[in-house]
């Protein structure tokens, strides 16, 4: 399998162009047909694959961190009369199921990230749909706050997946049409079954787009809307933080980043991830934070975790269990944790905060078993405790390892305001509230413990860990638990974990990662899509899919 790298830079983009003009940036898609990530397909008609989306993700991140001056982002097509044709069908047809699923997950996260920029960075995304937007192309536009479609008598927006490919518009399309754009369900039904889609007037009338504009007024109208959005923004700041290459080193089966280490155990099909706490006290003020830039501890940790999660998900599908540990000084973590809240009004700190939020959300939707191990020397505190709470189980050592370091201080965990809503999950709840869903007393009880150092007994009492075990039992228990986990059906585990992690209310996000994704993944493995005569495989052959018409 191709090892996928998520490192890129605007200078190396093959498919996107990023232009910044004062407070408005433009990202233009002009896909290099021959720039596919893996051989076997041409990226015709501005269709995309994972490589195209990795560049988009890079652009989204750079706009947030390197361009505090940018308050509106216009996404547009760089080809004539073609905004974007969506995911490349030949790529989908030749890909393994796991690849398709991981691809969809990443593209979904990127689109959620675009919405997050609009909602939390004062960086509003506008889709300037200057040609046809089909399938995933329209879904890109749906992630933007406003959609303007060119009124040229031929360009349409469409979701042709169902009629042409026998699959779903799985990058949020179905969900956002009804849930975000409030298109009536019968119209949504018409829309999603009509391969050629709808032109301007109907699209506006139904709410599929916000406006349709003839070519002669195009630039002016897009510019007007962009500046209008920028005027609403509260984003401030003049100097950005350059996203320099990650200091990642690979040493056999060990990946090292500043503050994050991952050891891959292929025999046990497991990854041991250790996050290091800060080594120094936080800088005194926002200026100091900005001066540290990529070296600011919360940012460095987040970048490392983000890259690690993406790489492991894409490149290491066999490593089904991730064991998460932390190591460091609780006091220092607390200081940074407090600073993130104190300086929340600063644009950069705000970006770090939301980046960490998005990164832990990636864990929530990761199809791996996540186990937190809390030992002496760990620093699961505030924002780092979110990592443990994101895990499926938490094991905490009661006391110390008598045979190793009897003089060590027993592990503690500390809840802070960070655990009480600062980093919500996709369901809109904190991980704490999700944990105690339906148990308001326990939630209130935990909230009363904010700031207290909880030893294993107290943590277990408060329901914050799965099991507190002393050193006599601990190691063996962990070993057995991990072996047991590794022996279970990976499919059943993925489904089970996804169900358990997301309690409570539905949101666009939970619908996309739950309902839409689950249905899509089912459809992907059905012969009607992926069989030799399935629609996905036959697309472009001149033959339609040959369906088994039995409803399931």
């Amino acid at each position: 399998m191709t090892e996928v790298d998520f490192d890129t830079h605007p200078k190396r983009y093959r498919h996107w162009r990023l232009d910044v003009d004062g407070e408005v940036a433009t990202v233009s898609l002009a896909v290099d047909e021959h720039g596919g990530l893996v051989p076997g397909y041409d990226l015709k008609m501005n269709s995309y694959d994972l490589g195209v989306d990795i560049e988009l993700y890079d652009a989204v991140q750079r706009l947030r961190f390197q361009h505090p001056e940018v308050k509106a982002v216009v996404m547009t097509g760089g080809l004539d009369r073609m905004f974007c044709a969506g995911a490349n069908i030949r790529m989908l047809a030749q890909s393994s199921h796991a690849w398709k699923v991981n691809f969809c997950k990443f593209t979904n996260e990127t689109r959620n990230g675009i919405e997050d920029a609009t909602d939390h960075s004062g960086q509003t995304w506008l889709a300037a749909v200057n040609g046809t937007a089909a399938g995933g192309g329209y879904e890109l536009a749906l992630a933007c706050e406003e959609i303007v479609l060119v009124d040229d008598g031929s360009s349409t927006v469409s979701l042709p997946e169902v009629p042409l490919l026998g699959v779903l518009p799985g990058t949020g399309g179905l969900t956002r049409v009804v849930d975000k754009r409030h298109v009536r369900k019968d119209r949504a039904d018409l829309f999603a079954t009509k391969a050629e889609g709808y032109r301007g007037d109907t699209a506006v009338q139904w709410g599929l787009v916000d406006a349709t504009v003839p070519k002669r007024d195009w630039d002016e109208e897009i510019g007007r809307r962009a500046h209008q959005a920028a005027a609403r923004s509260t984003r401030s700041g003049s100097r950005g933080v350059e996203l320099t290459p990650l200091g990642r080193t690979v040493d056999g089966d060990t990946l090292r980043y500043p503050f994050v280490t991952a050891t891959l155990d292929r025999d046990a099909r497991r990854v041991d991830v250790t996050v290091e706490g800060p080594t120094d006290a936080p800088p005194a003020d926002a200026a100091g934070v900005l001066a540290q830039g990529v070296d600011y501890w919360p940012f460095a940790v987040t970048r490392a975790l983000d890259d690690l999660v993406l790489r492991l998900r894409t490149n290491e599908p066999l490593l089904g269990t991730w064991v998460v540990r932390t190591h460091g000084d609780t006091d220092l973590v607390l200081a940074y944790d407090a600073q993130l809240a104190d300086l929340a009004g600063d644009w950069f700190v705000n970006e770090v905060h939301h980046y960490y939020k998005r990164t832990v959300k990636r864990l929530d939707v990761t199809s791996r078993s996540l186990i937190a191990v809390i030992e002496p020397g760990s620093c699961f505190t505030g924002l780092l405790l979110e990592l443990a709470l994101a895990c499926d189980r938490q094991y905490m050592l009661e006391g110390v390892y008598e045979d190793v370091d009897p003089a060590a201080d027993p592990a503690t965990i500390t809840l802070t305001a960070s655990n009480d809503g600062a980093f919500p999950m996709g369901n809109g709840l904190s991980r704490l509230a999700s944990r105690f869903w339906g148990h308001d007393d326990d939630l209130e009880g935990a909230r009363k413990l904010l700031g207290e150092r909880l030893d294993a007994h107290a943590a277990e009492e408060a329901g914050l860990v799965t099991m507190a075990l002393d050193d006599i039992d601990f190691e063996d228990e962990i070993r057995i638990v991990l072996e047991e986990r590794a022996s279970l059906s990976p499919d059943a585990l993925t489904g089970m974990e996804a169900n358990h992690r997301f309690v409570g209310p539905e949101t666009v996000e939970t619908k996309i990662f739950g309902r839409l994704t689950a249905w899509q993944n089912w459809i992907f493995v059905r012969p009607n899509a992926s069989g030799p005569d399935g629609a996905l495989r036959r697309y472009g052959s001149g033959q339609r899919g040959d369906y088994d018409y039995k409803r399931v």
Partner: protein
Amino acid sequence: MSTDSRTGPAPSPTGPLSKIDYTERIPNNVNLAGDRRLQRALEAWQPKFLDWWTTLGPALPTKDVYLRTAIAVGRDGWAHFDHVPMEEYRWGIFLAERDTERTISFGKHKGEPAWQEIPGEHRADLMRLIVVQGDTEPASVEQQRILGNTAPSIYDLRNLFQVNVEEGRHLWAMVYLLQAYFGREGREEAEQLLKRNSGDLDAPRILGAFNEETTDWLQFFMFTYFTDRDGKYQLGTLKESAFDPLARTCEFMLKEEAHHMFVGTTGVQRTVERTAQVMKEIREKGGTADAATVLQHGAIPLDVIQKYLNFQFSVSMDLFGSEQSTNAGNYYSSGLKGRWQEARRKDDHVLLDDTRTMNYVEDGEIRQKEVPMLSALNLDLRDEYAADCANGVRRWNQELEDAELEERLALPHEGFNRKVGVYAHHHLSPEGEVLDDATWERRVGDWLPSPEDRQAVASLMVPEYEYGKFAGWIAPPKTGINDQPVEFDYVHLAEEGVA
């Protein structure tokens, strides 16, 4: 280890010996002194065990008993005899010697080194197997606790207590595995082993046969013959386990089981011997040796013995579970539980392609079908067991033959009185005839002990505590224990026990 002039020293061990630390409260060959986890776990558990022994162990107060204590795992070291107060019996932990070269001999892991630790994948299954096995050990002690009050001799009383303390030790053995290898969950299960009690309405023992009352000594003998033999066969399959500590534990337990088998075999044999003798005497005097007459002469009628046999054999057969079992197949394939005498089987020890025939009942008759061997491993084990059971019956019949009597005892058909498996919802006669409900109801009293039968047996159960004397319903043994005479003072009763 103290000895005294009457018993002489213990025989010197001749086999390979493990170093055993006698200074420990818990004799063992598992390096208890060097294992902090085990020490804590067992020291917490031991008082609860002693408490259980005091409350639910043998009810008859004794001063001391001539008991065999395992002091080493070598050929003779496990059979050290001495008079010991029962509450001071040293319940130890012994595993057979480790063979460092041992490989797994069956299933999908065949040929791989045996496991010294629990693979996480099999934790739940292994724990279940050990818990079920462990649950039976204290159960029989509970079932037999009042039998001492009606012991037919001091010799038999000693044998009962020996069986009891060894069942206690077997519980220890299983508890050791739970504590040493299964972490906190294992400790919790170990405690539950003492919380469930035989026949307890709220927390009964796991397996049905271990909640049946042991009403009298004939049933005790039948129990040790038939039901303990089930234990022997289960241990035999666990002795093959890929999990080496379990295999070694069971291997050592099997040595002790042999004594339990001996108590059952000879106990029934001596009962039959006495009955045959009485029948012969009646007939020689021209009388009719019918049940009532035999009973009047103080012996147990042969047909009552047969009914007891029928009952105990059939409930013990149920212990093997359903003939076809997915669990048993999985246990085998995973290497958790082998077959009886796995090494001697001449096949591939994987069994994926093998089949065997199996009886079942349809349209009022017994038919046969081919089933995958892997699905029928419970049946495989049960067949081995039933064949073994037949040996004892032959031995008992020898007593009848020696007394020149025509009557014979027989094992009932495998489908007789079954509550588990393919026969569960059918009535079969001891000869294997499929019966309708009405016929069964009419005849069942001829085949299974009625309350009157048990009453009759109970009436003969008067204690005989004089050294060398035996109750009238049972013949004395040919020899004593450990080369001691039959009239040896095997048990010293406490003062209040004699009164």
